[in-house]
């Protein structure tokens, strides 16, 4: 598979080391001294640190392009008999691409936050948390073993918990934070078992050793509950449970929409560009394992497809601008998993990278509007927006670019990556590829529809939020718009690294990632005309969605109410998000609390166990009171007892003898 010869570097490399540890250092210093000394300058240190991390990432990326691979441990973290794991780094094309994206997007979002979070009493706390997040994210991506992956995995989850609940005084924010953590824990339960089984069957947690030992388990089966289960399937499935939690895939997707309670830069960074893509990254990282089991590949594709479709169906019914974008994130993550599930790992990674830019841009653009309306009771409500095109030109144009990108309009980044996924799904060697392609095509249309629903409702028509702004609506400060512009550039040019050969491009990203992820698993002989046809269809799907949005929200606004009235049942079903929250509440949360309160505490603990304990004490008491009758104090009685005792003893003695 490996075509290029790589130079493996196993020595400690200070530059690689500094990439994650600079943000960590900045975070710790800001957290401890920020409140007292930095106050409104708390952003300086994290931003500087992150800027250097970004430069170092580029340096390392260039080295990797030139054929270097870093693989070293900083120190041995856990050592117990045959278990030995270190904290260390693996920098290969996959992780180099990731860290460059992560540091770049994080840097821009840090800068944006200076404007967005300005004046917040928790200013220093905010920057300390997001820097800490970047550290854990980089540790996750750079990890060379499963244990450290888990460290990063839980670490980003923790920062996400802190940041969703950043405005902790708000009940809904702290609820959402807790929900996110616990739902993720459910996924991580499987993830941990996956790590244990990997160690059980392979005896190691290092990726490279896992890969070299995979042939040993390729045809191994183990009995689970009476069924013969394919070992690679078992391990991959358990690990994938973690991915479902972290990347918010059905049925563990419920936390992500609620996570929008956090500040908007957090939604952009953690819940769109970086953390939620960790699941996709993990599947790509461990793709040799997943590919050993066709059943597993099917599940990945299938889970991705369900999530992709479900979220795209919910998004158009929501009025909270951030929730719409959150559902769109779910849907796009679904695309990435669909890509993985048809063996198009490179396309999945490519979409991950482009998505980071346009999705971060969508959130930050929305944040720009929310910032304007922050006196409104619910600044996220798109019903109070409208007509903002002339007041907020930069926000409008950048958001438009992001929407065109996500809708897959040619020339923008999203087009290339989404098209790559659809084409490779269509030609996939896996039989479910055609189905995935069809579903992807339909959802592409839905995506364009709900994305432009936002554009049309927020920027066209009349502005409806006059009472919440002082004077005229105005553009956000430059510290916020400049990152928007940079991200908009990213939302276009990020696609250029993967222009397919059929369009005369070089497809750099594919060449770059092939050594790690391998060639796409497609049937041979793909004709160019077929590729053109597919491309045409997907562009058509996107345009159709935009047209529909234009029809409903610009041309004939009465259509919207008409639609929502006439298909009431379906509309409510979608508006209530397929009733998942209610379902979980009534089949998991309530019964657990009920069992705990009524059965465990009331019956078992307080009645049975304590009953026996206190009952035995009472028994002793009663016996004692009873025996006290014998204590008459009369010598004659005692001597009679003694006599009886001796007789009994003698009888027993004689009998036994």
């Amino acid at each position: 598979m490996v075509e290029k010869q790589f130079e493996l570097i196993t020595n400690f490399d200070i530059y690689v080391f500094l990439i994650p540890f600079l943000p960590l250092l900045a975070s710790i210093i800001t957290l401890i001294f920020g409140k007292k000394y930095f106050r409104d300058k708390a952003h300086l240190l994290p931003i500087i640190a992150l800027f250097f991390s970004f430069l170092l990432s580029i340096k390392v990326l260039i080295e990797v392009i030139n054929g270097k691979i870093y693989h070293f441990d900083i120190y041995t973290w856990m050592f117990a008999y045959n278990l030995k794991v270190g904290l260390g780094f693996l920098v290969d094309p996959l992780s180099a691409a990731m860290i460059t994206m992560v540091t770049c997007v994080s840097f821009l979002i840090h800068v944006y936050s200076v404007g967005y979070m300005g004046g917040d009493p928790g200013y220093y706390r905010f920057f300390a948390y997001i820097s800490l997040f970047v550290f854990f994210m980089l540790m996750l991506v750079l990890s060379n073993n499963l244990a450290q992956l888990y460290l990063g995995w839980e670490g980003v989850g923790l920062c996400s918990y802190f940041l969703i609940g950043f405005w902790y005084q708000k009940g809904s924010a702290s609820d959402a934070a807790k929900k996110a953590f616990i739902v993720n824990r459910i996924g991580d339960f499987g993830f941990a078992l996956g790590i244990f089984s990997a160690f059980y069957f392979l005896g190691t947690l290092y990726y490279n050793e896992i890969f070299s030992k995979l042939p040993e388990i390729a045809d191994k089966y183990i009995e689970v509950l009476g069924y013969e289960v394919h070992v690679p399937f078992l391990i991959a499935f358990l690990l994938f449970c973690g991915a479902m939690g972290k990347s918010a895939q059905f049925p563990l997707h419920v936390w992500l929409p609620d996570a929008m309670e956090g500040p908007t830069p957090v939604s952009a960074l953690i819940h769109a560009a970086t953390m939620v893509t960790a699941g996709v990254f993990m599947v790509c990282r461990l793709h040799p394992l997943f590919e050993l089991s066709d059943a597993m590949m099917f599940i990945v594709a299938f889970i991705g497809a369900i999530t992709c479709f479900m979220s795209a169906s919910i998004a158009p019914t929501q009025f909270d601008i951030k929730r719409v974008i959150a559902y769109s994130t779910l849907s796009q993550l679904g695309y990435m998993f669909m890509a993985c599930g048809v063996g198009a790992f490179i396309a999945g990674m490519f979409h991950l990278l482009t998505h980071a830019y346009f999705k971060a841009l969508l959130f930050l653009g929305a944040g720009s509007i929310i910032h304007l309306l922050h006196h409104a009771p619910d600044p996220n409500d798109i019903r109070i927006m409208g007509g903002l095109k002339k007041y907020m030109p930069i926000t409008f144009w950048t958001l438009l670019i992001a929407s065109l990108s996500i809708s897959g309009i040619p020339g923008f980044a999203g087009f290339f990556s989404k098209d790559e996924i659809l084409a490779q799904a269509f030609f996939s060697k896996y039989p479910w590829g055609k189905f995935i392609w069809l579903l992807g095509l339909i959802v592409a249309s839905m995506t364009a529809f709900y994305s432009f629903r936002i554009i049309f409702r927020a920027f066209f028509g009349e502005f409806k939020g006059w009472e919440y702004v002082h004077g005229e609506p105005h553009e956000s400060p430059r510290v916020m718009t400049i990152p928007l512009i940079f991200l908009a550039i990213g939302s276009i040019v990020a696609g250029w690294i993967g222009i397919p050969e059929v369009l005369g491009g070089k497809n750099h990203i594919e060449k770059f990632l092939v050594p790690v992820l391998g060639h796409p698993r497609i049937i041979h002989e793909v004709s160019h005309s077929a590729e053109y046809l597919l491309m045409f269809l997907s562009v058509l799907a996107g345009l159709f969605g935009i047209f529909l949005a234009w029809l409903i929200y610009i041309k004939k606004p009465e259509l919207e109410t008409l639609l929502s009235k006439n298909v009431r049942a379906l509309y409510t079903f979608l508006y209530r998000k397929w009733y998942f929250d209610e379902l979980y509440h009534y089949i998991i949360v309530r019964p657990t609390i009920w069992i705990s309160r009524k059965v465990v505490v009331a019956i078992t603990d307080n009645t049975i166990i304590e009953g026996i304990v206190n009952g035995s004490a009472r028994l002793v008491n009663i016996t004692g009171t009873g025996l006290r009758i014998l204590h008459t104090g009369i010598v004659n009685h005692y001597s009679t007892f003694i006599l009886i005792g001796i007789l009994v003893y003698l009888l027993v003695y004689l009998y036994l003898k």
Partner: protein
Amino acid sequence: MESLLLNNLLSWIIWFPLIGILIILFTDKKHESFIKWVSLITIIIDSILSIYLLVNFDFSKVGFQFVEKKRWIEFINSYYFLGVDGVSILFIPLSTLTTLLCILISWDSIKELVKEFYLALLFTNIAMVGTFCALDLVIFYLFWEAILIPMYLIIGIWGGPRRIYSAIKFFLYTFFGSVFMLIGIIYLYIKFGTFDYTILINQKYPFLVESLLFLGFAIAFAIKVPMWPVHTWLPDAHTEAPTAGSVILAGILIKLGGYGFIRFALPMFPQAALYFSKLFLVLSVIAIIYAGLVCLVEDDLKRLIAYSSVSHMGFVTLGIFSFNPIAMKGAILQMINHGIVTGALFMCVGIVYDRTHSRSISYYGGLATSMPVYAALFMVFTLASIGLPGTNGFIGEFLILLGTFLSNKTMVVFGATGVIIGAAYMLWLYQRVFFQELNPNIAKMPPLKINELTALILPTILVFWIGLYPNLFLNFMTTSVQNLLMNLK
């Protein structure tokens, strides 16, 4: 001079607090601050001695180190026989550290019978360290029971409103268990004529006898741990005990159970231990889930943390009875971790209890606004308690679950659900106490005092130290655990 210290180091560590006790005894009870300082300095020196012990420990040596063996009660062939190995050594600094924290946290909160309180604390320290060093069953039993006396007093005198009920319950419950162990010890003596641990572990018994002996010891240890279903003394004792009492209970006392299993029940009766291991694994898993569920609906802060101890100790016994070296190491480390983290959590509760005199979760809310530093430290212990990677709780849980997985997968599948439940109840607790709108009850809270802050910073350091560089601690155990499990097979 140095050899004098090194040759009798364990005795020094055990008995050094006697000096403090004597000074305090001859001090008038009016000089409260003098009494406090004497006990503080005594324990600091004792802690330094225990660190000195760690430094001089030889990792590679099999068997016991710092052995002291002197004639004691000759006519029953009992010796003053002390020694430590990789299993017990870490508990000694843990004991002195726990006492140190107790003194710091009680500094202002104990206002009555100050002299007696510090005497009781120092006496507890002697008994705790002694128990971990004893290699003669008579000495062991004496120390083991001796802890009950000061603890009984600490709960019964300085405790909450239902202190008498709780103290008696605690005493009788644990004493009930110990009686079975005593019968076992007497049987062993009649059979082999010795109390020497190193001789007794090499004996062979008929299976029935071995089973009975094992169960006798196991009942004593299971009640101490406490395992389900003999756990109900713990919530009551914790709830009514003063903060220092809870810290000692959580930090050391319940570790004695786990230590007892590893030191005595397993190596002395390996066949029986193996035979009954399934039962104990199941009980452990029940404890993990059952206590976790109780925590979900508990409103009393101290009871909640007490039940979480039952759940966490379930992980420890799970690791012990999986007979896997990784899990065994994890179990020992998890005992240390649990002592640090749960002790710290009890101190945290004590700190707000001193200010509000309420343990009810619903009394609080928004505390992060009025006590930010405290909230941050509480968060560290919460995270350690739910086993977040980077904290010590993770290392213990990870090693236990991973090791147990190698020998018994089903148990891990069930046991690991405790990790989810743990996150749920701890974060819910944290949310209700610290987040949301500031409850007017607690709008004006005095900030942390220096003694409280110190008492919380020390465990914080250990949380991250063990979490990020556990090998330093794991290395102590390697040889001993390997040796222990080799003898079991």
